[in-house]
């Protein structure tokens, strides 16, 4: 059974990963966050808590997810490519891992209401799902633009019994959805648990969600040892806020053999519109944390852009910012076009339709120099499936 272990990269007692992380929130939330931190620390290594999580992972989510040897991809690339199949989870992505665990924590804290922000709607759906499962009241905040773009996910959330708020402030996307979720939380913090959708936000969220999502790397490590009897050479994951990447990287960070690589959204190119906060941003404070941000010369937050709504965020989890500065993880980016090509490539080579987000990680396999990966073992975290992207893909691709 998976139980988190203390990490060398754990934040300090105020939630700082080096200069990053922290708790930059209105005073009203400070006691709430301190209480959440204390309560999380009580269950962080607690057998009883993780047994309950484990039960739902096995019986409800469908864990462990397979580590699939992608033979056709491997043959083409001359490398051994394994896919960590988070796309096979219930609700179609890794998001369900952290919503299950957060909902169990919320229940233990006696909170009857949960809220969440969502971009593409995957985290919103995963939150609405656990709300139904654990009989919690659920409200989802989603940018008005995304509500239009992701009509089907909005319907899913409503079908599951959640109330969906269409956020009309600012740029009407994920950033603004998170602003309004925070505003709602400040106003209702005493009885409401905020189920944050990634390894971002104020402490203890980045650490807590990394701990929870590390089930991915924990499984992948055991699976690759069983298959290859050695550590992988590369572990690749896409990054919006960075939860699937932290989840798979965490157990490989100190393996000498292994290079972890995080892939940001290159959008239309790094000199145009994109979502590459690490590549093109600078340190700053947004949504309760210090991290890399896309911002103008006055520190106003800029809109991010990506083909994939899940990577369309102008910030990134603070631990990634820290790992970047430490040089521990390599970060690179993939453009919309490269991601879309990889979307088709994986579909037609392996019969697996990836989410647009995960397509960025897949695309990187083709960007790596062939001689560099020859005979190497590579794990790609296939964080989600592409069903949600069908309408968008249909408008972009033509096969006749």
């Amino acid at each position, binding site marked *: 059974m998976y139980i988190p272990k203390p990490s060398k990269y754990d934040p300090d007692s105020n939630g700082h990963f080096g200069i990053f992380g922290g708790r930059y929130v209105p005073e009203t939330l400070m006691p709430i966050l301190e209480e959440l931190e204390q309560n999380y620390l009580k269950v962080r290594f607690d057998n009883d808590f993780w047994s309950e999580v484990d039960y739902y992972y096995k019986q409800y989510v469908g864990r462990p997810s397979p580590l699939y040897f992608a033979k056709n991809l491997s043959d083409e690339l001359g490398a051994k490519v394994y896919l960590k199949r988070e796309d096979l989870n219930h609700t179609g992505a890794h998001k369900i891992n952290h919503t299950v665990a957060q909902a169990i924590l919320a229940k233990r804290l006696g909170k009857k209401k949960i809220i969440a922000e969502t971009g593409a709607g995957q985290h919103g759906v995963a939150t609405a799902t656990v709300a139904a499962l654990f009989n919690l009241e659920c409200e989802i905040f989603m940018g008005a633009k995304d509500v239009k773009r992701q009509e089907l996910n909005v319907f899913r959330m409503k079908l599951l019994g959640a109330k969906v708020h269409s956020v009309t402030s600012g740029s009407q996307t994920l950033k603004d959805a998170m602003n309004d979720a925070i505003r709602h939380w400040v106003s209702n913090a005493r009885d409401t648990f905020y189920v944050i959708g990634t390894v971002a936000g104020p402490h203890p969220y980045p650490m807590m969600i990394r701990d929870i999502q590390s089930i991915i790397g924990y499984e992948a490590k055991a699976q690759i040892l069983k298959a290859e009897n050695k550590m992988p050479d590369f572990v690749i994951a896409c990054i919006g806020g960075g939860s699937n990447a932290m989840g798979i990287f965490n157990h490989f960070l100190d393996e000498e053999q292994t290079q972890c690589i995080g892939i940001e959204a290159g959008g239309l190119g790094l000199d145009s519109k994109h979502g590459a906060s690490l590549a093109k941003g600078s340190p700053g*404070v947004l949504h309760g944390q210090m991290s890399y941000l896309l911002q103008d010369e006055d520190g106003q937050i800029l809109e991010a852009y990506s083909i994939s709504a899940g990577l369309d965020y102008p910030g990134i989890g603070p631990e990634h910012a820290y790992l970047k500065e430490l040089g521990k993880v390599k970060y690179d980016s993939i453009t919309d076009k490269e991601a879309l090509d990889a979307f088709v490539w994986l579909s037609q080579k392996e019969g697996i339709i990836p989410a647009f987000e995960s397509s960025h990680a897949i695309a990187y396999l083709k960007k790596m120099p062939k001689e560099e990966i020859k005979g190497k073992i590579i794990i790609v975290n296939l964080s989600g499936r592409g069903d949600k992207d069908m309408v968008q893909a249909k408008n972009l691709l033509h096969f006749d």
Partner: protein
Amino acid sequence: MKKLVAYITATYPNKDFTVDLALALKDAGVDYLELGIPFSDPVADGPVIDEANQKALKNGFKIKDLFDVSKKIAPKIPTLWMGYFNPFYHKGLDLFINEAKNAKVKGFIIPDLPYEEALPYKKDIEANNLCLIDFVAPTDSKERINKIVKDAKEFIYMVAYAGITGASKSENLQEIIANVKAVTSTPLFIGFGVNEQNAKEKAKGVDGVIVGSAFIKVLLDNNLNYTQKIEKISIMAKNIKEQINS
């Protein structure tokens, strides 16, 4: 005499208007001006102040504009800059400290920089004879209040309820007020949701009130011209000042 702090969004609808409004507020009896720095993501603010922020940014607000208007305002009425931390951090706190001193601004109010995160910066700010206003909230324990207000300067900003600016909520604050008063004699002001209707009630037990959204609603009213806006806001300020002291 109980004090009145007025929040206005800097440079909305334009720089000259902000200066005129600030000086009119001084004449109306306002004791401190809270000059709001427009920010793209003001998470502690409700829809009214958010709208003013977004509109000011759309009009092309630059941090330099804040410095410009402050030079004309701060020498005449005690002025504090109210803004979110990112612009301070990104442009450098030193720049804000120097510009504040140049313009005779008294200090900063930064709602997303709570006590712990403020510690590394507070020394520099205070060494330059500026203040960083401390916040207390209804969710705070007695221990936390002790820690926060022990060395508070100028005044303490008490948030009237768990929430964002401009909401019609209220909470019983008697215990919080007593906890603050037991530790410090620094004046305690209440803000969030204070308006003409409730100012007297809200001012009970504290040394002053902070009014923002109520003024900004007038600022955003398209049916009024500039002169009417200034006149209406001034009358409101005057009424509130009278009510809290009646």
